[in-house]
Structures are given as structure tokens and as C-alpha cells.
């Protein structure tokens, strides 16, 4: 049984890492024909990477980073305010939270297109529009992820805190937020990754090439006629490297935040 489980682990790891390794391998090959690297190549080269750097992939990555960070900050601030005040308000607030959380399942495109056109009408700068729309669409997701944990800790500690004479602000800052911190970290990580890789909204909002995000930059290598494989592999390779760096950072933060608290036995899920 143990061998079978180890074998399954190995297969899963291979399925996860294999495709990424393939792209990284191909990205160092300057003679990529129809998606397959040349068999005769012996010397890896950085030609593909130099080409995409010349075309401005770093600027696109910086735009993506900025948009994601600001959108997540705005989104989590609004979501936390909504959740905390909603819980403190009692049943009416909690029922309002249900409504916000369930918006998440409505197709975002229904609201997105009119919002995009409205923001264009009032001449909002495209990058600001992207940040606004992204954070707005993150709020229901963040509320949905934070609320169950917040309810559990609220029910567990609110009454004891009041009996001990804690004010509402003390209760929120010293008791509720520390208990919510792992969930807040997880929610921010997920929100960041979603905005970082968002293509649909960015394509609707950003028109100027100077403001392209990383996914928009990558999508230019696939046209209706052909695929520019060399540049595609290199830009996907850079996307993978940045993705792995992000994954390592978020994984580290999550491990610190979640697993260190679980050992204290608080049991707040």
C-alpha cells in the first residue's frame, strides 16, 4: 500500500512539474520548429529570452505586479470591513453577507462589460480601470473565503471577550484579526494569483501596448495564422519562473501563517 501511495505521489509530481520542465527545456533552444525543438542542437542559447526582453516583457510583468498588488490590497480592505461590520451587526449583516458572497456565482461578464464601457465613458485611465474592476470582482470571492472562518471565531470568542470587558475595537484588532490572519493570507495569495494571470478583463480594458499585462504580452505570440514557438516558449518560461517564485513565496507565507497556528490547537478552521 505504501509503495502504491509513493508511486501515486511520483506520478502526481511528474504531472505537475513535467509540462513546466518541457517548456523550460524548449525555451533555451533557438531552433524550435513547429513547436518541437531541433534534434541537432547541442548548445542551449538565450536567444529566445533576449528577443522577448527586447520586446518589453519586463515592463508587462511590472504592470501585472502593480495591478495585482493594488487590486488585492483594495479588495481585502473592503472585504474585511464588510465581513467584520456584517458580523458585528448581527443577523441582518450576516444575511447581507450571504447576498454578497453568492454574487460570486453570477457570470462576471454580465457586470464587466457595462462597467468597462462606463469607465471608458468617464475617461478613467485604463490601468486604474483594471485595478478598480479587479478589486471589485475580488470582493465577493474574498467575502466568501473569509466569512466561514470569521463566523466560527466570532461565535467562539465574542461572548467571552465581552464578558472580560473588551471593547469592539479591541475584540476586532486583538482577537478576530489574529485568528483570521491565516485565512487573510490565503485569500490575498489566491486573489493575487488570479489577478496576476487575468487575461479577459485586461484585454477588454487595456488597449495601449505600453500598458499590457503579462498575460496580454504572452497572448500576442498566438495569432490566427501561426504560433511563434521560440518567443512563446521563452515568454512562457519567464511566466513559469515568475510563477514558481510566486508559488514559493506564497507557499512559505502560507506555511508560516497556517501551520504554525494550527500547532497551538486553536482549532479555528
Amino acid at each position, binding site marked *: 500500500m505504501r509503495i502504491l501511495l509513493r508511486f501515486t505521489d511520483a506520478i502526481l509530481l511528474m504531472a505537475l512539474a513535467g509540462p*513546466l520542465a518541457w517548456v523550460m527545456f524548449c525555451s533555451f533552444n533557438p531552433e524550435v520548429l513547429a513547436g518541437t525543438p531541433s534534434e541537432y542542437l547541442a548548445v542551449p542559447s538565450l536567444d529566445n529570452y533576449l528577443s522577448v526582453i527586447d520586446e518589453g516583457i519586463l515592463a508587462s510583468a511590472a504592470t501585472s505586479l502593480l495591478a495585482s498588488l493594488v487590486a488585492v490590497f483594495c479588495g481585502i480592505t473592503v472585504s474585511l470591513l464588510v465581513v467584520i461590520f*456584517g458580523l458585528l451587526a448581527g443577523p441582518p449583516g450576516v*444575511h447581507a453577507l450571504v*447576498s454578497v458572497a453568492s454574487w460570486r456565482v453570477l457570470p462576471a461578464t454580465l457586470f464587466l*462589460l457595462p462597467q468597462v464601457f462606463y469607465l471608458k465613458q468617464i475617461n478613467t485611465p485604463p490601468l486604474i480601470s483594471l485595478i478598480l474592476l479587479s478589486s471589485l470582482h475580488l470582493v465577493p470571492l474574498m467575502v466568501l473565503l473569509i466569512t466561514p472562518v470569521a463566523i466560527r471565531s466570532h461565535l467562539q470568542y465574542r461572548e467571552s471577550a465581552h464578558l472580560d470587558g473588551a471593547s469592539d475595537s479591541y475584540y476586532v484588532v486583538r482577537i478576530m484579526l489574529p485568528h483570521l490572519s491565516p485565512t487573510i493570507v490565503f485569500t490575498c495569495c489566491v486573489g493575487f494569483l488570479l489577478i496576476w*494571470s487575468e487575461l479577459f478583463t485586461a484585454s477588454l480594458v487595456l488597449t495601449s501596448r505600453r500598458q499590457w499585462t503579462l498575460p496580454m504580452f504572452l497572448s500576442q505570440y498566438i495569432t490566427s495564422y501561426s504560433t511563434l*514557438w521560440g518567443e512563446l516558449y521563452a515568454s512562457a518560461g519567464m511566466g513559469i519562473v*515568475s510563477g514558481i517564485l*510566486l508559488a514559493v513565496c506564497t507557499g512559505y507565507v502560507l506555511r508560516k501563517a497556517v501551520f504554525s497556528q494550527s500547532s497551538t490547537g486553536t482549532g479555528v478552521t
Partner: protein
Amino acid sequence: MGTQTRYVCFTATAMVTLLALFVGPLVQWFQTTPESIVESASAAYAESTSRRATVRSLAYSIVLPICQIAVALLIGLRLARQQRTWAIGILMAPLSCGGLVASLTWKSLLHGGGPVQATLKTITGGSPNFLGTERVLAPSSSLTFYSGDLAVLLIDSWVWIPITAAYFAICFQRIPTHLIESAKLEGASALWTARRVQVPYILPHIGIAFLVRWADTFRLFDAPWTLFRDSPSISFMSARIFTLSVMTRDPNAAVGLSLVAVLMSLPVFLGAYFLIKLVIFRRFDEQ
């Protein structure tokens, strides 16, 4: 004004503001366009490609999350049991790379001269065209499953199963240890503990994961767009809306199609509303 009333007022204001930010532009849109809401929606539904795209997205969004969550639960349980915290970072990798990079990666693996096709041809002598439109299943006239759908399923699962498994692993990890230890002391097997203690404890989180996956699968965009653009055969709702609004510059039809999508997903929306109320907020109501 009492503290409680202030909280209620704040919450009400926040809700109204959020609602206005979502619904306001939509109302304004329909006030400034010559066509009515009903006309736009019925015109969008009358077009066969749009209708097929919406039905396909809806079918995907129901089947795919159920399968993905089942697999993710098993992986999450194993990760939590083995205390493999280092694996969380690895599991975040596909989502960190993004849907587009994932689609490009798999496109390079699955295309005609790629390693997957070559390996399958060597082993079995033939291979399905993962990026083609060979008919595999046709349960109804609006819903046909093509060989290219396999690639979309694969990419979506590759991106989302790991992160969902990481989410479940975190949830399992935060179950109070005394519950699991008591079960062990009573002589419960690992399977019994998982079925009767661990999974029920994280049920709200499973519900949330399902809702999030449902919504994301319904508006699936990156993989179909990268692989097939807005192909008339393998068309998805978001790709169709994108084509209508950006490529053919007919935003009214795009909003009409979005409305059709909302109407078709209304039962799921209502189901989600009651599920959230029942699973997540029950404890609050009980108190």
C-alpha cells in the same frame, strides 16, 4: 444611535454601494442603448454558436468541479496526513503561472508534433487529435464533445486541482487534533476518520470550493481562447462574449449573451444562495 444600529447602518451602506457598483453600469447601459434587454437577450440566444457556447459552458461548469473536488479532497487528505507542508508551494505553481501560460504549455505538449502525441503513437500506434474537432460524444444537438475538449479539461484540471488540494490540506490541517486523536483511541480506521470526522468538519469549505470552481468553470476563457479562439465547434461562453465585444465590436450582443448566461445559471445562483445560507451561516442562525 446605538452601537448595534451603527453597525447595521454601515453594513447596509456597504451593501448598497457594492450593489450600485455592480448593477448601476448595467442599468445605465440599457438606458443608453436602443435595444431593450429582452431584444438583446433573445437575439443572442437565437444565434446558434452563442447558444451552443453557453450550453457547453454550463455543462462543463456542472461536471468538471465535481470531479476536480473529489480528486483534490483525496490529495488534500494525503498531504495533511503526511504533514507535507512543503508541498503547498509546489501546488501553487500551476495557478501562479496562470491560465494562459498553462494553456500555452499544454498546447506545446499536445500539438501534432509534440511529445504527448509522439509518445502515444509509439505506445498505442495512434493518438487522438487533442487540438482538433473530431466528434467523441453528442448527447444533444447543442452539446457535442470533441477531441479538443480533452485538452480543455486537462488544462483546467492541471491548474485548479492542485490549488484546491492545497486549500483542503490547509482546512484539514486546522481540524483540532483532539478530534482525530479521540477517533484513533476509539480504534477508528483512517478511512472512517476521514469519512466521519475530517470531511464533515470541512464541509463548508468544500461547499465554497465548489461554488468558486463552478463560477470559474462557467466563465472559462484562457484555455479555449488559446487553443481554439472562437471556433464555431468548440466555443465557450466567455470566448464568444469576448469575440462579440472586442473582435466584431457588437457589445450589445455580448451583453445580451451575458444576460442569457445569467438566466441559464439562475437555478445554480439560487441554489448557491441557499447552500451558502445553509452550510456557512447555519451556525450563526442557530445561535
